């Protein structure tokens, strides 16, 4: 685990507070999408297929901040689109840091070096760089040659300036465990704080439908990749979520754990499924038919999903729901053995 103690403390005290107040459903990470525009068109992405007038639009900083305040989650992830293309990204980050939110700015890093001067290093700000594997694998995943090298330049520049940098990796069928292990070595050698992993989700709008992982294949891939994990590998996520991906833990989805806000409103029910929008966060929480989602619901869209936005919140909640959950998390964190 590579999450700094102050961040762990913030998350832990937030979750415990929710539990003590008897709140059954609470958000952990707000997925804030200020725009859908991107400078890449990755085959596995279902986020950018919109008409031109939608791709040109973006939220205002005021709309973003209102959503952050309304939601109350301690962590704000800014995906997109490419957030570094958002014209007010610097102002948005300043506002969020002022609110002591832990911000994960999810970027492909093509513009990172060029835009670094807009930001100041802070424990609240992390550049989470999209890296789907070694050079050839990543460039293939993002459908453009040279992006891996550009991202490495961005990562190095951000690290030199003292920023927190992590990587986020989406794995598709056909990923090689051996190559991924080499990739982990390479990223840690670059000096990133930690890595985040997730299996891909089969967006119905994504062009590539053939390479998404099914559950048993996910377990197999993550087991092969993470068994006998090296101590130098740091993961910036719940170790129990990684164990879940390896098939060592059974969790149910927490679709409200990572609520999503974008120019259309509050997305129902989760970051991945797009079944409608609520005008307010309260409306989202109170009127979404949560029982229709997750594996137990029998919803076939949820059947093979093991993505972080549904299950990492479950893993974190599990940690703080029982002595057993807490002990398991501590044991994995201390021993480093997944």
């Amino acid at each position, binding site marked *: 685990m590579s999450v700094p103690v102050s961040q762990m403390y913030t998350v832990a005290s937030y979750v415990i507070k929710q539990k003590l107040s008897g709140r059954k459903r609470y958000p952990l990470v707000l997925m804030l999408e200020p725009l859908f525009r991107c400078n890449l*068109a990755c*085959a596995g992405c279902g986020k950018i297929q919109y008409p031109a*007038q939608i791709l040109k639009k973006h939220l205002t900083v005021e709309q973003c901040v209102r959503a952050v305040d309304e939601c109350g989650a301690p962590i704000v992830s800014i995906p997109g689109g490419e957030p570094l293309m958002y014209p007010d990204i610097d102002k948005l980050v300043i506002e969020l840091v002022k609110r002591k939110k832990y911000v994960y700015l999810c970027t492909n890093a093509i513009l990172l070096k060029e835009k670094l001067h807009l930001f100041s290093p802070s424990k609240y700000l992390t550049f989470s760089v999209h890296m789907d594997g070694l050079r050839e694998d990543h460039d293939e995943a993002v459908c453009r040659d040279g992006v891996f090298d550009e991202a490495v330049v961005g990562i190095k520049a951000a690290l030199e300036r003292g920023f927190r940098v992590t990587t986020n990796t989406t794995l598709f069928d056909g990923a090689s465990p051996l190559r991924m292990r080499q990739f982990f070595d390479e990223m840690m050698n670059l000096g990133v704080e930690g890595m985040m992993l997730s299996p891909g989700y089969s967006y119905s709008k994504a062009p590539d439908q053939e390479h998404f992982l099914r559950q048993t294949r996910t377990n197999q891939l993550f087991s092969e990749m993470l068994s006998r994990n090296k101590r130098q590998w740091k993961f910036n996520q719940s170790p129990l979520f990684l164990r879940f991906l390896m098939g060592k833990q059974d969790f149910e989805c927490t679709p409200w754990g990572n609520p999503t806000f974008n120019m259309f409103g509050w997305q129902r029910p989760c970051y991945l499924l797009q079944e409608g929008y609520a005008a307010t966060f309260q409306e989202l929480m109170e009127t979404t038919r949560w029982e229709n989602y997750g594996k137990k619901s029998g919803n076939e869209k949820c059947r093979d999903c093991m993505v972080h936005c549904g299950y990492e919140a479950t893993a974190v909640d599990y940690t703080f729901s029982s002595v057993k959950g807490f002990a398991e998390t501590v044991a994995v964190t201390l021993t480093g053995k997944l």
Partner: protein
Amino acid sequence: MTLEGWIPQINEYTSLQEVVEFAFDYRGNTTVVKGDGSEIVGYVFNRNSDAPEPFIQLFDERGDGPFNIPYRDIATIKFTGKDTAAGNSWKAWVERKEKEKALRGAASGADRLGSDPGPHGS
């Protein structure tokens, strides 16, 4: 499979609610034809059929909005804009990569032939 170009007729076989669902799922602009014959072109991003007054929400083709239009005002929805989710870019990417590899392979083969005169070369 894309609905691009579809102009549905609302009748006993195709309900307005079904067409609204298709429009909501469509990643392109549509033309909403109202009962009075007027039209609005835009991207339908939401609908609520459970509301006391069911409605759709859209941004028009200039990006203005959102505009709410009650179901009762809609005659039909035409799928007039390009379906931005249609196509198969992964396949195109893989094919292009394969072609590039083949070309690189052929070029290096030709280079070898050119630089190596062989045992009987001049």
